[in-house]
C-alpha cells in the first residue's frame, strides 16, 4: 500500500510559543515533500482529532503527530489502519530547553525529521492469525492447582489437571489441621481440601489425570501439544499452562549442625505434621510421648549457608503444631526458639493465643547445636532473650525447615543434556573433557524435568536465585520466561495455603489473559497490544544461533543445522533477536535495523565549524524513556546536543545503528537502559545485560576506527532515579566536548 504521510504540529502545552512553527513546516514540505502539514492549538482535543480523522478519511494512512511524548494521549492518536508516529516536542524539547532559541528549534526539527522518516519507512503490522486452543492445563494438584483449575473452569475454559501423585490435595491432604484462615484467627482449623478435591472431581469442565507426568510439550501459547506419560501417546492440545508444582522441604540432611541425623528424635516440621496427623504424639526412637518438645525456627532458613530467604509460613506452622501438641498431650511443654516470630497481619492473634498458654515457651535464640544425650536431647543456643547462652533439654526436637520450590532449572538441564551428547559422541579434546566434568557435576539433574518443553533453551522454566522461576516476580507476579506458562503458588514464592489458593486464581487469570491476547494476535506482557512480530529473512541466515540463544523467552527453536525456527506466539516482541542478528535479517514491520538506522541518519549534523556537537541517545522505552518523560514533566533541562531515539529494549539495539551514527557524524552515543544484575529491572530480563556484552564488540570497532572508547557509553537508570537522567546526559555531553568532535564528521 502506498504511503500517504501527513504531519500534524500541535501548538498546545507551550509548544507554539517556544518554537518556530513555520520552520518546522518547511522541514516537512521542503525536505520531505509532505503535502499535508497542519498546525492546531490542541491536537488531542475533539477538534484536533477530527481534523486528523477527516484527513484519514481522505486517504492519509501514516500520520506524524508532533506534540507530547508517545506515552501520553495514545488513544487520542490511534486511528484504524493508520500508522501513527509520535514526535515528542513537549517533554523533550520545549519543556526542557530555552524557548525561541536556535538550538531548541534545531532539536525540534531533527525530531520531526526522524518522525517523518519513520512514518515513511515503517508499516502498520498485520496481526498474527493463529488458531488458539482455549484449554488451560494445570500442572500440580495441590491447593494451588485445584484452585487454578476451578477458577479457569469457572471462567468457561476446559481444564486439564495433571497430578504426578496418586491423589489430589498435595501437602494439605496430609496435614491434620491448618493455620486458621478466618476470624478470629486464634486456633488451628481443620483442613478442608477434601471438599475442594470433591468439587474439582465433580466439575465437568475439569479433566483430572492423577499418576501422570508430562512426556513432552511442544508448540507455544494457544497451541501447546502435550504428550502425557502413562496416559496413552495421543497428544492433547492446550492453550496455556499453569504450573503449580509446589514445594518440598529444605533437605534436612544439610542440617547436621542442628542434630538432624544424630538422633531419630530430631525431626522436620513435615515429619511433625505426620506425627500429629497420626493422632498420637510419640517420638520416633522409643514410641514414648515426649514431654518437652523444642521447635527450632529458621532451620536452614535466613541462613547464608542454606536458604537465605524466609519462607514466611514456618512460624505459623510451629505455632499451630505447638498448640496441637498441648491439646493432644496436655502434660507436654513446647519450647519455641526463634530468630523472629513472623506472624503477619491477623496472625498476630494466632501468636498471642499461643503465647497465653503457660505450656508454650518462646525465646529468641541462635541455636548453635543439638547434642544427642541418649534419651535426652540437649539444645544449645546463644544470644537469647533469657540472657547469655543457654542449654535446654528436650525429648523431641522439631526443625522448622523452609520451603524449596519444586522447579527444574531448564537452562541447566539443557547444559547437562548438551554435555551428555558431547560425551556420547566421544570426540574433541578439551571440549570432551569439559563435557565430562559437566556431566559429573550436573548428574543430579538426570530425570529432573517437569514440563519437558520442546524448547531449544531447555525443557523447563528458567530459574532465578534459589530455584524460583525467573520472572522479575516483584513487578510481574506469575510471569515466567516462557510465554503462556505461569508459575504460581509455592513454586513462585513460599506462602501459606490460603495465599497459594489466591495465587492459583492469579495464575489461572494470567493463563486466560494469554489465551485471549494471543487469539487477537497481540503481544502479552509487557508490550500489551503490540501487533508487530519479528520476521526472519532466512535465506540470508548464517546459522550463527545468536537469536536462538539470546531470546530471553525461548521463542526460537533451531533445526539440526542451526537455522532458527521461530514460534511466534511465544514472542514478546522485544526485538532482542533483531539486535543480536549480525546479518540484520530480523525485522518488525514498524521496527527494524533499517527504519531506526534511517531515523538516525535523518538527523541534521552541523559541520565541524559550527561547534555544535551531536549526541545520539538510544533509550529503552520501558523504564528509561518514562524516566526521561518524568524529568521533562519536572522541567529538568538537559543538553541541547542530544537526540533521543526510543528503542524497545537495549537488547534490541543492533550495533549497526552505532556504526551508522558514527559514520553520519554523531560525536557520541549513549545507551540508556534498565538495571541489570541480580536485582534486575529489565522488562525483558536480559536486554541491558546483553547490550553490555555486545558493547565489547563496539569498543573493539571503535579501536579499529581510532575513536575514543568514551564516545559510546551504556548507562542503567532505575526509573525512580529519573532526576539523575539530565545530569547523566549533561555529564556525557561535557565528556564528549572534552574529547572533541568526531573526526569522521562531514565525510
Amino acid at each position, binding site marked *: 500500500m502506498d504511503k500517504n504521510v501527513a504531519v500534524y504540529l500541535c501548538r498546545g502545552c507551550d509548544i507554539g510559543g517556544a518554537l518556530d512553527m513555520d520552520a518546522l513546516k518547511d522541514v516537512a514540505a521542503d525536505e520531505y515533500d509532505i503535502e499535508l502539514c497542519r498546525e492546531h492549538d490542541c491536537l488531542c482535543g475533539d477538534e484536533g482529532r477530527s481534523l486528523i480523522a477527516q484527513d484519514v478519511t481522505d486517504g492519509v494512512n501514516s500520520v506524524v503527530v508532533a506534540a507530547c511524548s508517545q506515552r501520553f494521549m495514545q488513544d487520542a492518536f490511534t486511528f484504524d489502519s493508520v500508522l501513527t508516529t509520535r514526535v515528542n516536542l513537549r517533554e523533550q524539547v520545549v519543556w526542557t530547553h530555552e524557548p525561541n532559541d536556535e538550538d531548541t528549534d534545531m532539536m525540534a526539527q531533527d525530531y520531526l525529521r526522524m518522525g517523518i522518516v519513520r512514518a515513511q519507512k515503517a508499516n502498520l503490522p498485520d496481526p498474527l492469525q493463529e488458531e488458539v486452543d482455549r484449554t488451560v492445563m494445570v500442572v500440580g494438584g495441590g491447593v494451588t492447582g485445584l484452585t487454578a483449575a476451578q477458577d479457569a473452569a469457572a471462567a468457561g475454559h476446559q481444564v486439564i489437571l495433571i497430578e504426578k501423585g496418586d491423589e489430589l490435595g498435595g501437602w494439605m491432604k496430609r496435614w491434620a489441621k491448618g493455620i486458621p484462615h478466618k476470624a478470629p484467627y486464634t486456633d488451628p482449623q481443620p483442613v478442608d481440601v477434601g471438599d475442594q478435591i470433591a468439587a474439582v472431581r465433580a466439575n465437568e469442565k475439569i479433566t483430572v489425570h492423577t499418576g501422570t507426568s508430562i512426556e513432552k510439550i511442544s508448540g507455544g501459547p494457544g497451541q501447546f501439544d502435550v504428550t502425557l506419560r502413562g496416559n496413552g501417546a495421543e497428544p492433547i492440545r492446550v492453550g496455556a499452562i499453569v504450573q503449580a508444582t509446589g514445594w518440598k522441604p529444605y533437605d534436612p540432611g544439610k542440617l547436621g549442625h542442628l542434630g538432624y541425623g544424630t538422633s531419630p528424635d530430631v525431626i522436620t516440621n513435615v515429619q511433625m505434621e505426620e506425627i500429629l496427623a497420626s493422632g498420637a504424639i510419640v517420638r520416633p526412637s522409643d514410641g514414648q510421648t515426649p514431654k518437652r518438645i523444642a521447635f527450632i525456627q529458621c532451620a536452614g532458613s535466613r541462613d547464608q549457608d542454606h536458604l537465605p530467604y524466609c519462607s514466611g509460613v514456618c512460624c505459623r506452622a510451629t505455632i499451630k503444631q505447638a498448640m496441637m501438641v498441648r491439646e493432644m498431650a496436655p502434660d507436654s511443654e513446647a519450647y519455641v526458639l526463634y530468630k523472629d516470630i513472623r506472624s503477619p497481619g491477623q496472625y498476630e492473634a494466632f501468636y498471642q493465643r499461643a503465647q497465653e498458654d503457660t505450656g508454650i515457651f518462646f525465646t529468641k535464640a541462635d541455636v548453635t547445636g543439638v547434642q544427642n544425650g541418649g534419651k535426652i536431647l540437649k539444645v544449645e543456643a546463644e544470644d537469647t532473650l*533469657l540472657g*547469655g547462652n543457654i542449654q*535446654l533439654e528436650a525429648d523431641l526436637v522439631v526443625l522448622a525447615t523452609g520451603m524449596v520450590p519444586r522447579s527444574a532449572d531448564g537452562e541447566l538441564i539443557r547444559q547437562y543434556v548438551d554435555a551428555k551428547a558431547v560425551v556420547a559422541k566421544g570426540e574433541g579434546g578439551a571440549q570432551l573433557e569439559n563435557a565430562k566434568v559437566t556431566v559429573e557435576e550436573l548428574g543430579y539433574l538426570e530425570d529432573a524435568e517437569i514440563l519437558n518443553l520442546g524448547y531449544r533453551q531447555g525443557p523447563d522454566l528458567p530459574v532465578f536465585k534459589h530455584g524460583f522461576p525467573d520472572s522479575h516476580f516483584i513487578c510481574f507476579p506469575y510471569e515466567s520466561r516462557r510465554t503462556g506458562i505461569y508459575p504460581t503458588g509455592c513454586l513462585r514464592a513460599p506462602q501459606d495455603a490460603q495465599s497459594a489458593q489466591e495465587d492459583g486464581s492469579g495464575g489461572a487469570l494470567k493463563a486466560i489473559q494469554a489465551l485471549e491476547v494471543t487469539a487477537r494476535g497481540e503481544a502479552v506482557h509487557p508490550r500489551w497490544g503490540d501487533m508487530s512480530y519479528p520476521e526472519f529473512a532466512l535465506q540470508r541466515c548464517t546459522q550463527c544461533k545468536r537469536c536462538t540463544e539470546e531470546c530471553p523467552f525461548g521463542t526460537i527453536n533451531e533445526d539440526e543445522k542451526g537455522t532458527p525456527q521461530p514460534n511466534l506466539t511465544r514472542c514478546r516482541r522485544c526485538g532482542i533477536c533483531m539486535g543480536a542478528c549480525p546479518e540484520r535479517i530480523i525485522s518488525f514491520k514498524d521496527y527494524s535495523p533499517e527504519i531506526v538506522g534511517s531515523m538516525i541518519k535523518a538527523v541534521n549534523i552541523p559541520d565541524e565549524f559550527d561547534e555544535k556537537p551531536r549526541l545520539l541517545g538510544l533509550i529503552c522505552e520501558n523504564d528509561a524513556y518514562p524516566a526521561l518523560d518524568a524529568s521533562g514533566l519536572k522541567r529538568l533541562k538537559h543538553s541541547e546536543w542530544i537526540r533521543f531515539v526510543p528503542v524497545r529494549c537495549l537488547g534490541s539495539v543492533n550495533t549497526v545503528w552505532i556504526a551508522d551514527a558514527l559514520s553520519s557524524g554523531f560525536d557520541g552515543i549513549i545507551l540508556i537502559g534498565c538495571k541489570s544484575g541480580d536485582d534486575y529491572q529489565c522488562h525483558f530480563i536480559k536486554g541491558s545485560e546483553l547490550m553490555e556484552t555486545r558493547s565489547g564488540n563496539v569498543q573493539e570497532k571503535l579501536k579499529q576506527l581510532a575513536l575514543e572508547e568514551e564516545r559510546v557509553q551504556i548507562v542503567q537508570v532505575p526509573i525512580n532515579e529519573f532526576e539523575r537522567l539530565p545530569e547523566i546526559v549533561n555529564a556525557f555531553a561535557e565528556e564528549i566536548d572534552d574529547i572533541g568532535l568526531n573526526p569522521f564528521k562531514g565525510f
Partner: protein
Amino acid sequence: MAEALLLKPDRRFVEDLVGAGGGDLKKCFQCATCSVVCGLSNGSSPFPRKEMIWAQWGLKDRLVSDPDIWLCHQCNDCSQRCPRGARPGDVLAAVRQKAIEHYAFPSVMGNWVNSVKAVPLMLVLIPALLIAGALLVRGPLEAAVGYVDPHGHEFYAHFFPHWLLIVFYSGLTLLTFGGLIVGLFRFWAGMKANDSALGRGGAVLGFVPSVIKAATAVFTHARFGKCTDQASRKTSHFLAFYGFLALFIVTSWAVVDLYLMPLIGVESLYPFNLMHPMKILANVGGILLIIGAARAILKRMNVPADGKHQSTSFDWIFVWLLLLVGVTGFITEVFRFSVDPEVVSAIHNVAYGFYFVHLVMVFGLLVYLPYSKFAHIWYRTVAMIYAEHTGRTQEGQSLVQVAGTTD
C-alpha cells in the same frame, strides 16, 4: 561470655505467678518498653524486661534471687505503657510474693499466711487459741513462782498482764524472726549465686556504706518518690511507714519504762497519760497508720477490674491488718481512758473483747511478718543494700542520685 546455663523451664511456677496476680505475663514479647519507661530501672540489665521472660519460662531460681524485683516500687508506669497488656508491674509484685514464700522458713508458713482460705485458721483460730492458752497458764505460772504483778491493777493488765504480753509476743516474734534471718541469708546467698552465674555481682561498695545508702533511701522514700505515676501511693506508704515506726518506738519504750527504768531507780510512768510525749507520739503514729492504711485500701478498691495494678489476697490481708491494728488499738485506748477500772461492769468485757481482737491483729502483723507482705520491709532493704554493695545501682543512677533529683 558466661557459661551456658541449663534452663529448667517450670510451668508450675508460671502458673503460680499467674495465680498470684501475674495473669498477663505470657503476653510479653520483650519489646522493653517497660524498662525504658521505668524511672527506677538501671544499667546493663534493666528490669522488668528480663524478669518478664524469666517469668514466662518459669525460671524460679533466678526470679526469687533477683534483687531487681525489690528495686521496683510498682508505680505501674510499665503496665500503663505495655503495648501487649502484660502488666509487668503486677508480674513483679507476684514475683515478690513468690520470693517471700520461697524464702519462708518454715516454708509451709509462706503458703498459709497469704491464703484467703487460711485466714480463719491463721488469723483467728491460731492466735485466739494461743492467747487463750497464755491466759490459762498465767495464773498457775504466777502462783508457781510466787510472782505478784506490780502492774496487775491496771485496766488491761488485769486482763492480760504486761509481763505475759512481753514474753508472749517477744517470744513468738523472735521465733519467727529467726525464720526471717534464715530467709534473708538464703536470699543474700541466692543473689550472689545468681549474679555469679550471670557473670556479675562483685563487691563495689563496703557493707556499712551500702547499709547507710540503702537506709537513707528507705527513710526518705527517695526511690519510691521516683514512681511519679502513682504519687499518692507513696504518700499512703509514707504515712503508714512512719505511723508504724512511731508505734514501734512507743511500744519499745513502754517495755523500757516498765521494766528497765525501775532497775536504775526511775519510777515507771506507765501507763502514760495523754500528754506524755510518748503517748502523743503513739497517738500521732496511730492516726498516721490508720490514714495511710485506709488510703491504700480505698485506692486499691477503686482500681477498675480491667485496670493496671490489681490487688491479690497477699496485698489485701496485709493492708487490712494494718488498718485493723490501728483501729482496734484506738478503740482499746478510748476504753482505757473512759472506763473506770475500779468499777467492774459489763463494759469491761466489751473493752477486753476489743483488746483481744487488737491482740489477734497484732499477732497477725508481727508474728507472721516474715511470711506476709510485711516481709518486704526486710527483703527490700536487704536487696537495696545488696544493690549498693554490688554497684548495681551505679550502672545507671545511684540511690542517692535518685534521691537528689526531681522530675
